[in-house]
């Protein structure tokens, strides 16, 4: 879990929101705060698929499914464990 959070934090800072110097907390809202907006939601899904082999459907790309890095990590791990990739 911690490793997944670390990877996600780095990738989101550097590649998705492109603010490498920003402090990003694991419990900070990403989607509902607009930090990740509609223009980079698909980039987030593509990044998760590439690194973790987990597919996120568009209907899951909203703050009701996951909103923080911690929740996203849980979401990924649950999908990995259930075999739904």
């Amino acid at each position, binding site marked *: 879990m911690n490793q997944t959070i670390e990877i996600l934090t780095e990738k989101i800072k550097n590649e998705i929101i492109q603010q490498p110097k920003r402090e990003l907390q694991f419990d*900070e*809202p990403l989607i*509902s*705060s*607009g930090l990740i*907006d509609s*223009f980079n939601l698909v980039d987030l899904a593509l990044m998760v698929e590439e690194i973790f082999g987990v597919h996120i459907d*568009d*209907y899951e790309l909203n703050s*009701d499914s996951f909103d923080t890095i911690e929740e996203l990590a849980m979401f990924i791990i649950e999908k990995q464990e259930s075999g739904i990739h």
Partner: protein
Amino acid sequence: METILSLYEKQMRTLKGTDTAIRWIDSSLSCQQITWKEIEKESNLRADFLTKKQCQQGDHVFIFLQSSPEIWFFFLGALKCGAVPCVLFPNFGEDAIRSRLIIGKAACLITDSSFKKFEALFLSISTIDAIIYVDEAEVPSSDNKRLHCFHSASASNIQHFTPRCVNPHDPAFMVFTSGSTGFPKAVIHAHRIGESIQRSMQQVLQVEKHELFWCTAHPAWITGTVYSILGPLLCGIESVQYSGNFHAKRWMPILQDQKVVVWYTAPTAFRSLMHESPEFYKKFDFSALKKIFSIGEPLNPVVYFWGKEIFNQDIHDTWFQTEAGTIRIANVPGTAIKPGFMGKAVDDAMPVILNEKNQANQPNEVGRLCLKEGWESCFIDYFEQRSAFASKFQSGFYETGDLAYQDDEGYFCFVGRDDDVINTSGHLVGPFEVESVLLAQDEIVDVGVTAAPDDLLYEKVAAFIVLKENIIWSDKLESKLRVAVTSHLSPIATPKVFVIVDEIPRNNAGKILRNVLRERLK
């Protein structure tokens, strides 16, 4: 004069029912073909269902659904009932939904799995007689008598529904727009708009029969209601609809694989597509694409030249607004384009640039962009706000709220807004709504919201904030405020910039001096 329904019925008589009307593309880019016969049948089923649930002529039917063909079926079904459909954005927060349902006096609400999230809100709206739930996978547990589940498979198997008789001046549909002050206004369009929609599809967008058309606008936007839903239906044109999120890696395969011929989208989308390298686009074959149009914000010359290089086509800028109904100014294919200019008057539009004395300006002088009264697709009212409607018309001219100039060859150039409305990626955001949400936060004493220039969005929402004593600004607080606006209104309205100040500049009457705030952002 025709109505939307009479024009649709005329088209239906000329079309082969088994031909495809809509290519519905999902986020995995798989395509579902919906035929004209299916559109007719499915809309009839829903019209019949709405009628049985006491939907009356003139009732306001709100459609709050995730992007799906159901929006098309219920929109047309409501029209056939003589009702007035209104589509809401699926990512609206609770305040945005509540204000629109109340202002628009919703009589019927079509919804899906969002019901669970907004159940208490929906049930609190006393004007709503029927809430129709359309998600077959998950049935709500509520036993409220106003809640009805619609399952197309189990609906009465009617093939025919006799549409209620409407006349051209009857209300047809409603779209919300934001103003400088107060809550959003419900713009009502009449059935007479139908002929104007047909003309702009044929003469401005120049979509020929058997050409595939893709308007990327969501139906909650006027462009989506008019050109994603109604334009193709009234002209018998096959269209693409895509229900997934925006991304170059999704949109470009759609353009290529579906062989889209006429594409109508927004400058923000183009500017976002420009982030991909030219090499990315070389992988695609855009040879089917013949005409590209843009709407929503000014089309920067740099975007025009980028489009010319990538797609080997001109991007034709167009202009209209919710109240105008159909395209009023455009660069029409076949005429010379001046990059950065919106084009010339089209259809029955008579745009003029007026000065402060309400006299026509000389060429190249900036003034208020107005439309001479009397065009066919003009809105007929702001619902139950007659004085606001009347105030938009002065001396025979409709005030658009835009500033522009016309050059000596007749081309119009947009300069900016003449009011405080924020145009962010083509969506109008009223500062008042955002300020209301922020003022309700415990940490804030005063707030002023305005537009800040943005390379991608054209304008972004900026909030000037006065914090309460002993409150310290932090990333956490910023995040909290952003979440508040997103959850109450929508992601579009969420401020991208926060500026902490000691006081908000106001005039003697207490009105926020937004021009002063805008200056500080430059």
